[in-house]
């Protein structure tokens, strides 16, 4: 790797490390300056031109905006463009952004971040192309297939290039496919809790597939989208189940084609992770709890779908709420254990959502409207102060621990 290409986060870490090397006598003082000099440019560039993260965010946003604009352009100039012209624009735009992106990222290497965003734009235009072609030719046969093709076709690209952005897009598109496809397999109308249960199971699976990626050195840097999306989907679905939704069935035999692949993928991911070297702290408990949740929901969905159906305010709701609360404590604890701020932030987010939801549940009818809002507002204000302080303490303790180690 050339010295000029390293980012400033690395430089900051290196600075700390080099300090330690010197105190431990691994290097002498002159060497320290020389090592730091070699990487100093990255920090200088950042100071003058804004951080790497900022550039990435801006260029990814740019790619998304151009992609959306592209779709709107074709849609609103529908009649003026002949069929061949529409196809020409789709293929042309897609190839240009792929090739230009690749050139800037890997050949010239002078605009690597823009290169990544252009390749992301290529994957967006490809997806838009699927739907535009379906429109041009009036193909409306089983429409979820469009999303499935989009997601599956860009997934290999994410692996080849190790791009988190393309991987995130692929996973989001596949989640949308799952939602669309599920509606074709649910016999009684709009029983969305069955879908939520499938999403919960998928979230748990994605979460652990992410761990399997983390365990394999070559895939470590694309593990984050799986883990974060997995955790968010898991907690998001669990959050829905904390409401009074128990009047519906949990699952159906029609959905077995979904349950099984999810469980198989989870098991494979668990084996892969267990077999690889470096581990997260507390992973055995994490895996056990998730495996229990997954099998619990599977048994509930397949064998006892009626457990709570048509009983209002049932016992199950209390159980779900307890499990959800325990899950939040668990994820925050894991974040603390592994010094992972993302876990803590997600945990706190879902904690706040829970507080708001339960406040509405219990006090909406009991209090006069004005008191309800004043009380709710005060709880939120007080809560945010406590959370912010707690968060800062936790994050600071990470830094402090690093110093001690």
């Amino acid at each position, binding site marked *: 790797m050339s010295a000029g290409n390293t980012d400033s986060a690395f430089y900051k870490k290196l600075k700390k490390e080099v300090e330690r090397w010197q105190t431990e006598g691994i290097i002498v003082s002159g060497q320290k300056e020389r090592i730091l000099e070699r990487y100093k440019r990255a920090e200088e560039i950042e100071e003058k031109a804004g951080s790497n993260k900022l550039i990435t965010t801006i260029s990814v946003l740019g790619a998304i905006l151009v992609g959306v604009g592209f779709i709107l352009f074709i849609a609103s100039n529908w009649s003026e463009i002949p069929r061949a012209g529409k196809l020409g624009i789709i293929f042309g735009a897609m190839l240009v952004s792929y090739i230009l992106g690749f050139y800037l990222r890997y050949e010239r290497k002078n605009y690597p971040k823009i290169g990544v965003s252009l390749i992301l734009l290529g994957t967006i235009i490809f997806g838009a192309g699927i739907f535009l*072609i379906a429109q041009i030719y009036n193909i409306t046969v089983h429409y979820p297939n469009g999303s499935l093709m989009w997601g599956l076709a860009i997934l290999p690209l994410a692996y080849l290039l190790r791009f988190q952005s393309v991987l995130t897009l692929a996973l989001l598109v596949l989640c949308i496919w799952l939602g669309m496809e599920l509606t074709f397999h649910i016999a009684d109308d709009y029983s969305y809790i069955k879908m939520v249960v499938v999403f919960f199971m998928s979230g748990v699976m994605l979460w652990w597939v992410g761990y399997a990626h983390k365990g394999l050195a070559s895939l470590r840097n694309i593990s984050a989208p799986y883990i974060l999306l997995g955790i968010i989907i898991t907690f998001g679905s669990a959050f829905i189940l904390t409401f009074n939704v128990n009047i519906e069935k949990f699952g159906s035999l029609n959905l077995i084609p979904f349950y099984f692949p999810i469980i198989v993928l989870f098991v494979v991911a668990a084996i892969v992770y267990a077999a690889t070297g470096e581990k997260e702290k507390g992973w055995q408990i994490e895996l056990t709890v998730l495996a229990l949740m997954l099998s619990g929901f599977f048994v509930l969905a397949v064998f006892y779908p009626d457990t709570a159906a048509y009983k209002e305010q049932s016992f199950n709701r209390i159980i779900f709420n307890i499990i959800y609360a325990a899950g939040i404590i668990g994820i925050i604890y894991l974040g603390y254990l592994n010094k992972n701020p993302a876990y803590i932030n997600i945990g706190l987010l879902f904690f706040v959502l829970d507080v708001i939801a339960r406040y509405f549940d219990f006090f909406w009818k009991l209090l006069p409207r004005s008191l309800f809002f004043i009380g709710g507002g005060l709880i939120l204000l007080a809560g945010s102060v406590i959370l912010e302080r707690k968060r800062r303490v936790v994050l600071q303790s990470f830094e402090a621990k690093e110093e001690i180690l």
Partner: protein
Amino acid sequence: MRWKFALLVFLQVILLVGIIGYRQYWVEANERILLESVPVDPRDIFRGDYVTLSYDISNIDLDTLGITEKFERNDIIYAILKKTDAGTYKMDSVSKAKPAEGKFIKGRVTYAYDKASRKKITIRQGNGSIRVFEQPWVSYKVGDNVLLCLGADGSVITSREAKENTKCPDGEEEITGIVQDIQEIIFRRINAEYGIEHYFVEEGKGRVIETARNARDLKIEVALRKDGKGLITALYLGGKRFE
């Protein structure tokens, strides 16, 4: 790296071209039939970028057809078609089992109602003649003076209380009279979709189609595969072809 990247992008291009090729092959290799279509909302069918189309196979009255088979949402069904004198195809029957021969189109049940209802209304016209019509629902009561607008096939398209200045659109037959009786008929009904419910309209062409719409002669050309899967290839409105 460069070649692997090129290969993956090439595969994406192949996939897109494949979709087009698949459609072209489907259209070329299979017979095309004409289905008569009813616009879902006859007052405003060309809103947005596509037209929603409905057919006689879209809302099926099982009791009238004498079908006792039970249907559920998402069941795969086959609507068996027969040719009319006009050269178009209409529904003959519907079944969950795939027919061995003949023309049929494959679809999916979107709703199954055990207790759908429609109204049977008796009207006495000004000249004293009594006529009977059926409507999904009514907005008037016995004794009201009503205006019914009938389509080419004699079915009620719209109905309302008869007032001065209320008229039916061109091409629709007008019936006015006093309502004598309203009866409710309970029947088993399924709604189904066949993948031929949306026709994408190019913005400029939408207007042309809209003005021609009053002819109420909407036919859809469908490339029908042997296994019953259909795909829209064109739309005929008042004898004009739109592709």
